[in-house]
């Protein structure tokens, strides 16, 4: 059944989009991430312009993180104070990201920026995750105990001023790295159409030493608010959010996430991390090929935007 997307100006098969929502939702539920880094490229692939894809996916991620955040909230497995502090940075980052997004779009370099950012970010993060995952599995295979860093150990992050105590996470840490992380997530999310859960979770664990039990819930609250505000900002400045597309994606996404979460609980965590790493790396490589291979046509046409 074909339906017409009013903002993307494109007819699509409703079942195809629903299936994409389900598939990405399944993965996002399995790994506890938003899945924007998969959804945005998929939408671009079916013909949605990168600008509309990025703007629309932000609302899709808002929906899937809302459903996750509510479940974590019921179990009190999140640190609201930490999430709000991250958010302070996140909002500034989102505003800056949407501003840069608009600027790049007007000079015709948005698509290339999205492409290069995907390659750099997904390539490096995916690569690290794969290496780390393989090492963890090898260690487990050789029967050596998993080397966890000592929870009390301090890094340079702990030497910074403006310290605040976060009760739920049981950490006492400077506000500077917290706000900086929030800022990065907001900025990256607005430009690349990703919630950044796969970036935020490792940063919270390794840089801030947030305990694992509150990490995912906290990350989801942050993602939820940054992505909801990115939706509003994209809609207000660029008029690019396709509500019809977003709704189909959301419905598929939240259903898929439930099944993904059940599948994820049956897998061992180091396997899960390796799998996620491979996935992230694969998407990064896919973008790299697009940039490196000679395009079918070196010319492209696009209506002049931002003059209305």
């Amino acid at each position, binding site marked *: 059944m074909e339906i017409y997307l009013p903002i993307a100006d494109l007819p699509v098969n409703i079942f195809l989009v629903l299936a994409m929502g389900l598939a990405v939702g399944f993965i996002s539920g399995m790994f506890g991430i938003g899945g924007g880094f998969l959804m945005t490229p998929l939408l671009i692939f079916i013909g949605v312009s990168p600008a509309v894809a990025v703007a629309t996916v932000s609302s899709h991620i808002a929906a899937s993180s809302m459903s996750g955040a509510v479940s974590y909230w019921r179990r009190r497995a999140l640190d609201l104070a930490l999430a709000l502090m991250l958010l302070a940075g996140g909002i500034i980052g989102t505003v800056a990201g949407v501003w840069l997004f608009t600027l790049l779009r007007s000079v015709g370099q948005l698509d290339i920026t999205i492409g290069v950012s995907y390659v750099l970010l997904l390539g490096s993060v995916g690569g690290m995750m794969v290496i780390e995952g393989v090492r963890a599995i090898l260690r487990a295979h050789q029967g050596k105990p998993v080397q966890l860093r000592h929870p009390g150990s301090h890094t340079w992050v702990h030497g910074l001023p403006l310290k605040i105590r976060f009760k739920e996470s049981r950490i006492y840490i400077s506000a500077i790295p917290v706000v900086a992380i929030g800022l990065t997530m907001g900025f990256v999310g607005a430009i690349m159409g990703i919630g950044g859960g796969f970036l935020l979770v490792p940063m919270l664990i390794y840089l801030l030493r947030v305990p694992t039990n509150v990490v995912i819930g906290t990350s989801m609250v942050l993602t939820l608010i940054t992505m909801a505000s990115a939706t*509003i900002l994209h809609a207000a400045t660029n*008029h690019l959010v396709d509500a019809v597309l977003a709704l189909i994606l959301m419905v598929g996404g939240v259903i898929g*996430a439930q099944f993904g979460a059940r599948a994820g609980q049956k897998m061992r965590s180091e396997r899960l991390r390796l799998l996620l790493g491979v996935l992230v790396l694969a998407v990064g490589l896919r973008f790299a090929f697009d940039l490196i291979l000679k395009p079918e046509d070196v010319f492209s046409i696009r209506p002049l935007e931002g003059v209305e």
Partner: protein
Amino acid sequence: MRRAAAALFAALVLAAPARAERLIASLSSHRVQITSIINGVELVLFGTVEPDANSVPRNNAYDIIATVTGPRETEVTRRKERVFGIWVNVEARTFVEVPSYLAVLSTKPLQAIANEDTLRRLQIGLAHTLLPQQIGPDIADVVADDQFRQAFLRIKQARRLYSESTNAVTFLTPTLFRGSIEVPAEAPIGTYDVDVKLFADGAMIARTNSAFEIVKVGFERFIAGSAADHGILYGFATAAMALMTGWFASVVFRRD
């Protein structure tokens, strides 16, 4: 007095163009809804040629060239080049107020209907359509073999937005003709002008106009309109929809 009347009559006869045939044309539909053209739509152009008492006998049959011009928009053509190993947009040209859709339908190949000079003068055919580019402060069309112009036409044709079909119009009787206008799903909303020209013996002897409109109606128009006119409100509504969907899912699938 009689002399004055004769002069007036002579002036009228001389001033009136030597148009002996009347051309009448219309379309099967003047309003197309965007939801109905998901797989593209075909409109029928039909019309008749009415010779009158003054018609001179023609050596050859009549020919029709119809030009369908979609709403005008400004488009940017970009060229990619390899920079440090990756393909980047390096050069861009802005085509100012060019037709978003352009179809040239005719009974015969254009060159067989009229000579090159006539075609150029009347701007008939993709090769003779004005595609003004912004070059610095000036706006001008460039030579026909300009690479950006060529690329623009090639991409538009590949997307079936520009087309030249030399057998799309047929005469059912010596004076009654029928043509088909194919509009792809990608065609933008707006008014499409249909300009029909009648040719005989290599010269244009009559022309007429018609038009149709592609409209977004109902739901699509409401969404697109709200997004453009009430961006902030639309954003809040979409965000609220996302939160509701997420919350609803967590309630439906609640396991604890």
